[in-house]
């Protein structure tokens, strides 16, 4: 048999390629090369609406639902945050810690050193509208005195973004409004069932407005009037062109409020008044929905929010 040595060499080279190459690659993997500081690798995932510390790769990206990362560090500890985007353009913003907004484009990586000097829970946000789950894209930075002496509550920052095709038929405008409120992401800022409670750091009113009292804001004072208005929504009337005023109290005031609120949903409210002009921009602002919601969609959301009003408490 000729070429014996060449054969052995060829087999060795093949094995070197097949085995050596992956070993070399994974030894230089992205996870833990940060020198002396602890590295936390966060990946922005548009489809799940999260910054996650789970591994995101070409294989699992398409089927896995990723969870938002909770970053925990001790007071005074310095960590290296390595931020990558696995899909669209995201941003990372922790206003209370003076970080960002840092914009990270798809496939790019940015690193920031984070040193927290105050104990507490701070919310991080994505402030670049990155996809359908953008409004859910936030999480918590926990700064503890040490790992044992402080136990934080398991605060739920926002609902989970679950994308699926909408039902073909809704039983009512209220049902459709509830669906849109949840899946379009209104819930992420205005809270479950419009109860609010979501902090907007350095916003003059501290919290994002609650919406379960929308009926009150729209000058609807009676449950019967609320039902009438929801029925009018469902019959797709144009309130401005009604010849006969509907039998509800304060119709003209309701109409003014309806138009004002509808306009706010359509056009958004990009400027949020600061509590302290020296401190960073509040991260949450009402976006414009003109391109994404029809008039019927907006009326459905309003119908849902009106239906949330706790009439019984005021009887």
């Amino acid at each position: 048999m000729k070429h014996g040595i060449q054969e052995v060499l060829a087999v060795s080279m093949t094995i070197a390629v097949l085995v050596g190459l992956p070993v070399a690659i994974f030894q230089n993997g992205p996870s833990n090369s940060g020198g002396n500081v602890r590295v936390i690798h966060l990946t922005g995932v548009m489809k799940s609406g999260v910054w996650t510390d789970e591994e995101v790769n070409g294989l699992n990206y398409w089927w896995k639902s990723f969870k938002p990362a909770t970053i925990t560090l001790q007071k005074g500890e310095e960590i290296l945050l390595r931020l990558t985007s696995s899909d669209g353009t995201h941003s990372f913003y922790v206003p209370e810690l003076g970080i960002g907004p840092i914009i990270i484009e798809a496939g790019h990586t940015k690193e920031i050193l984070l040193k927290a000097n105050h104990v507490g829970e701070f919310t991080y946000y994505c402030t670049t509208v990155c996809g359908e789950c953008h409004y859910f894209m936030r999480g918590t930075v926990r700064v503890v005195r040490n790992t044992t002496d402080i136990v934080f509550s398991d605060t739920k920052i926002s609902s989970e973004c679950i994308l699926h095709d909408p039902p073909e038929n809704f039983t009512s405008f209220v049902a459709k409004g509830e669906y849109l409120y949840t899946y379009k992401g209104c819930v992420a800022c205005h809270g479950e069932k419009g109860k609010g409670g979501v902090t907007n750091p350095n916003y003059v009113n501290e919290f994002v407005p609650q919406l379960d009292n929308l009926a009150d804001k729209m000058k609807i004072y009676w449950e019967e009037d609320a039902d009438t208005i929801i029925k009018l929504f469902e019959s797709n009337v144009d309130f401005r062109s009604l010849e006969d005023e509907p039998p509800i109290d304060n119709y003209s005031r309701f109409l003014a409020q309806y138009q004002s609120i509808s306009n706010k949903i359509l056009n958004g409210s990009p400027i949020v008044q600061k509590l302290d002009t020296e401190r960073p921009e509040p991260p949450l602002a009402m976006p414009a929905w003109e391109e994404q919601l029809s008039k019927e969609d907006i009326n459905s959301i309003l119908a849902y929010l009106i239906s949330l009003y706790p009439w019984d408490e005021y009887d």
Partner: protein
Amino acid sequence: MSEFVTETPEIEPKTVIRKRPRPKKEPTPVKGFRLDLFDWIPGLKKFVRLRSFQFLVILPNLFVFHILFIAGIFGTPVGNKNIMIVFIWILWWFILIAVMVPFASRIWCAICPMPFFGDWLQRRALIKVRSGKTKGIKNKMFGRNLRWPKRFSNIWLQNITFLTMCTFSAHLVTRPIVTVGVLGSMVLLATVLALIYRMRTFCNYICPVSGFLSLYAMTATVELRSKDTDVCLKCKTKGCRTGSEDGWACPWFVYMGKLDRNNYCSLCMECMKSCPNDNIALNLRPFASDTQIRGYDEAWKGFIMLALAMAYSIILLGPSGTIKDWANVAETHAWGGFAIYTLILWSVALVIVPGIFYGCILLTRRLAKATHIPMKEVFLGYSYLLVPLGLLAWIAFSVPLLFVNGSYIISVVSDPLGWGWDIFGTADFPWTPLWPEYLVFPQIALLLIGLFYALNHSYQIGERLFGSSEAALKGSIPMGVFSVGITLAFLKFFTG
């Protein structure tokens, strides 16, 4: 016992029909200049004759492919930041279609790592040759070495696999994992088939890439051929086809004495080692020298390629968002639209374009007053026009892919997996389209070159088929209209 006795049937006298012996196919006479590159490039002949030649050219590719697979699975899902997508669908594709095929024939098949493991298992050797006997071959081969079924011994399966693959191209060219799945399946299938069937069955009959390489390699400006076919005919060993102690039998079952087209020669150069007469040349030759399509499978490959070039021009380069959404079903979930898209794509490729072509052939026969010549002969003869038309359209289509998106190559070489590496300091190289506003000019030029070759060959094919200049000229009219129509359609797609 009587019930067991049967009457002997009367034997009716039968007319014995003897089949007319099929005329031996003689190689097509060579036209145009030939220049043996082995004589002109010092050391080339010595290099390809090395036993390690094939291993040496495949190994670097195996290395790159391995990185691509790792990147596809473990790297970023962002297509333009993952070397798998950028290298395969921008760099490799452009080099393959615009450089390798027209200038180096099937050189890709010589360096392709996909059949590497199958070959290894079949030969149990990477460098050395095993003498012995295996079903008519003078090499010892391992595995079952069965014959591939005759009914599939054509490129129809390749046509189908390619069309299927292209139907899902919107996912293939954007999602690294899909490309991993497709290429991985090809490696696996090539390996499994090598254990069951003889030689490179996968490459010969199934590989979706091989099909269009075989067709477009006809245009290549190089060819591997016998220097003197008489020497081959007198050769007793036929080592090129059956192997010898110096070289493996041709993995494509090619006998050099009759090789007159590039279609099924993968340039693996085993014949250079096994030929006992030093009778093989690597010729430089004029573009588009092989002009004979020899089966409907090859003709339909031409139709499919033409239709796909049109479809991609509309989907990838065109403004229609709806069609893009239909094609990109995994993200849009527009299954109804995807079904329509698939139906249109397959109908255009398999029925509509061939139907229009058939209509032109009917007219050609009538105008040339050649209805006595079998339809098949005329159809296949003229179907060669699809080769220069299709290849140049594909090159024209691929130009913007490289020039607009080529800058991604610069960034992924520094960070092939999108892990934040910066090997060469170019990881953050921005997307920089090169002269996008001027790309239409080379595209137009390429289309016109394709048209020129189509028209020129249309006349030559006519002469060959009908035997007179007048008939050739008349017959060329419908084919010219077809070729001009196709070129105008592409011009419309590219210029908007």
